[in-house]
């Protein structure tokens, strides 16, 4: 099964740059508010689920 999207849609690079800038600002504010990432928790749960499925 071919799962690659072959449509001709082109990305809007200016939009990508603008969104990245905004995401950076929002993320910085989140860090200043002391919001802590729980990446490790997510990783552990996620990998447990993958291993269980395998």
């Amino acid at each position, binding site marked *: 099964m071919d799962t690659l999207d072959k449509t001709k849609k082109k990305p809007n690079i200016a939009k*990508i740059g603008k969104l990245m800038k905004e995401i950076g600002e929002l993320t910085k504010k989140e860090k200043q508010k002391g919001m802590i990432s729980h990446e490790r928790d997510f990783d552990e749960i996620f990998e447990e689920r993958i291993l269980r499925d395998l």
Partner: protein
Amino acid sequence: MKEILMRSSKKEFLEICKNKHILFDANVFIFGFGHYKEFEELCNFLIQAKCVLACFSLVEFEFLRTAHEPKNKEKRENLLKEFREISFIVDDARDDMIKIANAYTARRITGASAVDCCIATLLKKHNQQVILATLNHKDFPTFLFDRIFIYPIDTDKDIFTLAFYRFNVEKAKKIKIM
């Protein structure tokens, strides 16, 4: 040709990656919001080479999970809409994922996550069409992948080394995972 696949000049790389899907690893997206101009330049470089900018669901998951507030998450989702999604069907890839994970473990590559093994499986499945862009080099070892091009990014404070990787079928056969 073998030498070209191992490490190519910019001109050779542009030829290799023409019309190929460039799969962005989550760390590249995360790098991007700290360095949006450099990220934009990277996208422009790839678009000029007629590449397709791509991501897939597990990379999206890694990128979206670090956003806490809805507005941040919404912006990230909008950004990902500009990238072409590569579907990933776990059922099809199950055996490959186990073989790749075992090959990593046998070579003491313990830092690679389950998502990295999924990316490796995706690169194996689409080895002629998909090239990975990542800042994480340890998890895509050269016993299985060709590091075909290194793209240094010089910011004011630091220098980042992004590289492009392609799954090498001959290497996979040599270590008996194909």
